[in-house]
């Protein structure tokens, strides 16, 4: 019998170091897209609040090591790294396998991302609890500030392109010395 073993989205592509930029794969655990029905936002926030998660403001995330609730659109959030409770007022979709997640760290991380992401990621504009649905090159992405670095989510099918684009940007930043 053929035995299938799972491959992670960045298998064979990450980790990678270019100049002083470190790019590593993140296993986010379960990822659920929580989209409250019209007039279901209050009940959704309540159900998640009872489970210890505060509904995030636009462009913000809440939580911590035990799971993050990340704003990803008008009245929508991703619960990353935790299984959501029963939420009667929302459409909850398991999207764990649909996303590739990478952590970018190092002193040049903002310079590298500035070449790809059309959002101001500076310390002043993009604080410790900031997140943005935006672009990485031409790819739709979710960029989240985590500690001193960033976690970037792209569609799993884009994992190869993502690594290529980040590497090219990192190389040209490194070449400037």
């Amino acid at each position, binding site marked *: 019998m053929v035995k299938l073993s799972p491959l992670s989205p960045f298998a064979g592509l990450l980790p990678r170091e270019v100049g002083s930029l470190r790019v590593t794969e993140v296993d986010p655990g379960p990822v659920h897209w929580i989209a409250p029905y019209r007039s279901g936002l209050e009940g959704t926030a309540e159900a998640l609040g009872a489970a210890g998660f505060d509904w995030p403001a*636009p*462009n913000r995330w809440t939580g911590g090591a035990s799971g993050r609730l990340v704003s*990803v*659109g*008008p009245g929508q959030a991703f619960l990353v790294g935790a299984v959501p409770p029963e939420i009667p007022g929302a459409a909850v979709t398991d999207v764990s396998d649909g996303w590739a997640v990478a952590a970018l760290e190092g002193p040049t991380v903002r310079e590298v991302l500035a070449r790809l992401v*059309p*959002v101001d990621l500076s310390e002043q504009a993009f604080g410790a609890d900031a997140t*943005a*649905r*935006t*672009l990485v090159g031409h790819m*739709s*992405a979710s960029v989240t500030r985590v500690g001193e670095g960033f976690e970037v989510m792209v569609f799993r099918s884009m994992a190869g392109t993502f690594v290529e684009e980040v590497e090219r940007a990192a190389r040209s930043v490194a070449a400037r010395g």
Partner: protein
Amino acid sequence: MRLPCPHCGERDLREFTYKGADLPLPEGPDWGPDWEAYLHLRRNPAGETRDLWYHGPCGSWLSVTRNTATHAVAESRPAREPGS
């Protein structure tokens, strides 16, 4: 050029897709000058225009009123909400 998304705030033009003029639908199903104007006639103003834009990253359809001569944006609201 930058456009404000009511959810995400001000964002770069690269994140948006132009979706055409935002015009009120003519009344009634019968063909006539109103429908022809709705489908075919555009003013191309040097001044105020109201258009539909799609903010891809957050999935919002927006109705944006802006000035083509000054780039000033007078209003940006979710297209699903009733307008002024």
